[in-house]
């Protein structure tokens, strides 16, 4: 155990910091759930890509820097420290990218990865269906083989980024006789294909953060089939593993939020009466720190050649509950002004983005597998409790 950074890690941190200082937009971008903000964020992805900072863990041939996970964590720490924009490219760089590298043909990699890395093509997820949310194996959306094409019919829902994205990836039923997780295929679909209708879904904050996608005889070349036909479930599970695992929520995000919480607390503590607020602040700070420690521990083990274990199922529960608690505590510190949308208030600076963050935190225990499902997984796979 050695918790010092190596000289090259320290140098890497400095390099990241310097580049971000020079490039992060001075003015906060509009939300990427607006058309204007989406394009602003796409531009930012292009800027990142131009500096080879799009996804530092990717191989150099795809615009990465072949960094290990410790360096990725350092990058993330500096990224959040700099207040850099949210990543509109998240579905691509964290989920689809690694999957393409593992399962894609050379031709597919060539076609998709660079365009993804550069921000030319932004990706949406298309997993869930109206009756296949937590129960993803209940997918019914069909992709029927027709010559060299698939013809897709059906409906997807909760597709993040789909309102403005260029492509979507997801699972489709290619064997009409199959059931559950058999007979599904992993297919990449251009969202400008004839027959695709995207219906935005507004979130709690009124912005369309996700969408329904309707497929009406949408024709897609079988070039866009990732991995073998009817092998989609296995591929998706590896994608979902990435999502639920280490990289979905970077610890730096929560450490920065808890640091801002401590600052708000120092400023407001003499004005508030809540007897439990001190305890909440201390807990938030400790838990954000614990999440970082745990992530470094796992990253160290992976860097040393180890594997990520079932205990990683604990991550999702921990950070999603932490995120809610950080924001609830901040709103408690703001008292009755917490309900105000800050753009209309005089004391905008103090209100900050806490209300926004609070609204967003509400989705944490729900998406990427509800926390109820996560607790089942922990009990059954990590602790070995009986299924039935």
């Amino acid at each position, binding site marked *: 155990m050695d918790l010092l950074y190596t000289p090259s890690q320290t140098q890497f941190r400095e390099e990241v910091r310097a580049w971000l200082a020079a490039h992060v937009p001075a003015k906060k971008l509009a939300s990427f759930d607006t058309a204007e903000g989406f394009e602003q964020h796409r531009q930012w992805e292009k800027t990142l890509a131009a500096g080879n900072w799009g996804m530092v863990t990717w191989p150099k041939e795809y615009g990465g820097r072949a960094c290990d996970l410790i360096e990725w964590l350092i990058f993330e720490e500096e990224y959040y420290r700099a207040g850099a924009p949210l990543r509109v490219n998240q579905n691509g760089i964290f989920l689809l990218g690694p999957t393409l590298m593992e399962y894609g043909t050379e031709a597919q990699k060539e076609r998709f990865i660079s365009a993804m890395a550069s921000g030319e093509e932004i990706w949406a997820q298309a997993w869930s269906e109206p009756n296949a949310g*937590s*129960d993803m194996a209940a997918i019914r959306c069909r992709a029927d083989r027709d010559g060299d094409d698939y013809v897709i019919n059906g409906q997807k829902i909760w597709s993040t980024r789909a309102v403005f994205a260029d492509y979507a990836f997801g699972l489709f039923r290619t064997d009409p006789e199959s059931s559950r997780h058999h007979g599904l295929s992993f297919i990449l679909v251009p969202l400008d294909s004839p027959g695709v209708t995207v219906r935005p879904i507004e*979130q709690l904050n009124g912005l369309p953060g996700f969408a329904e996608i309707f497929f009406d005889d949408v024709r897609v070349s079988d070039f866009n089939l990732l991995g073998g036909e009817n092998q989609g479930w296995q591929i998706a599970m590896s994608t979902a593993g990435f999502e639920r695992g280490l990289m979905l929520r970077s610890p730096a995000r929560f450490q920065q939020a808890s640091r801002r919480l401590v600052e708000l607390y120092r400023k407001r503590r003499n004005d508030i*009466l809540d007897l439990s*607020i001190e305890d909440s602040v201390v807990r938030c700070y400790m838990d954000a720190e614990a999440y970082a420690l745990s992530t470094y521990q796992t990253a160290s083990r992976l860097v040393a050649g180890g594997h990520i274990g079932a205990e990683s199922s604990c991550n999702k529960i921990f950070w999603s509950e932490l995120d809610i608690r950080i924001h609830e505590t901040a709103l408690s510190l703001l008292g009755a002004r917490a309900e*105000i949308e800050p753009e209309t208030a005089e004391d905008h600076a103090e209100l900050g983005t806490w209300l926004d963050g609070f609204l967003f935190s*509400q989705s944490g225990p*729900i998406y990427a597998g509800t926390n*109820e499902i996560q607790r089942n997984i922990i009990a059954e796979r990590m602790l070995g409790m009986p299924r039935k």
Partner: protein
Amino acid sequence: MDFTFTDDQLAFRDSVGSMLENEVTTASIRERWTGDSGENGDMLNMLNEMGMNSLLVPESCGGLGMDLVDFVLLADACGKAALPESIVEDAVVAGGLLSDLLASGQHTDQVQELLGGVAAGDIRVGCAHIINPYSNFAHRKDWMLLANGNDVHLVPKSDLKFTALKSVDPSRRLQKVDWAPSRKTRVAEGEVGAGLQRATLNRGALAAAAQLLGLAQAMVQQAVDYSATREQFGKAIGTNQAVKHLMADCAVQIEFAKPVVYRAAYTVGVAPQRADWAVSHAKTAAGSAAELSARNATQVHGAMGYTWECDLHIWVKRAWALAKEWGDAGFHKNRIHEWLLQPNALLGPEFTFGKRYIDHSDSAAA
């Protein structure tokens, strides 16, 4: 000793409740969001016809002269319906303060006339208390009761300047109210004014608590209904023990908040010197039940609960706002804490009810 509501009280609640259930559709609430005033004029008329404006107004002013025990179930029903109009605050808070002014003989003629107009539905009076940074629907009132230090002022709309603020809850129309106090507008001062403001805070917190109770029950009901129809893994999600227990936890908090809110309503009328703790307990318990219900109902709704089109957030956001309005949990728990620290605080079962509960005021005025 009778800790029940009368049949009349229950029947009144039922009739107001079913009117609201029929008329305050979620579509009509969403219409208000895009409207200029945020209010529905027909609804204001219906509420007036049912007596909501006149219920707490003294009989001498043409009102029904009833009390907060009569009103608390109606406030609960308004919460259940997520009624956007501020009728509960108008009746309980502004109406209560006007009645207090009348009772204490301050500016009797003007106050009596206003109360008559309120009871008839002709005049709308609002009230802003210093504990709230902004005032909901203040711009729709003909008169506002406002505080300046210990003093209480009664100010006509023409002398007020409003700045609108956007709440997380689109049903709320918060206003910052700017005004200049003058001797002309002052209706109470000094100790009297301070006492009126304290009573106003307690009535406001009680009104919020009662609505929070209704909000909590409505959210649980929606989540229960949703969980019976929404299927995952081939069965209704409501068959999962984890989902059941999310709902059961809410039900427990709600059941034990109810009698606390009811006692607070009783206390505000019968033993106002005891009201600080009864009300603070009620606001804390109802706020906590509503916040838990908001969280758990959202969780049961899954991704649907995170959308604008699902109606649940109409209730959820109201619950967030009301839990902090009229004193947040910190403020109210602190009032109880201060009291518990007093060596002469009379705690325990023999002081929970009865004459010893009502009469003793160990530290109330402190």
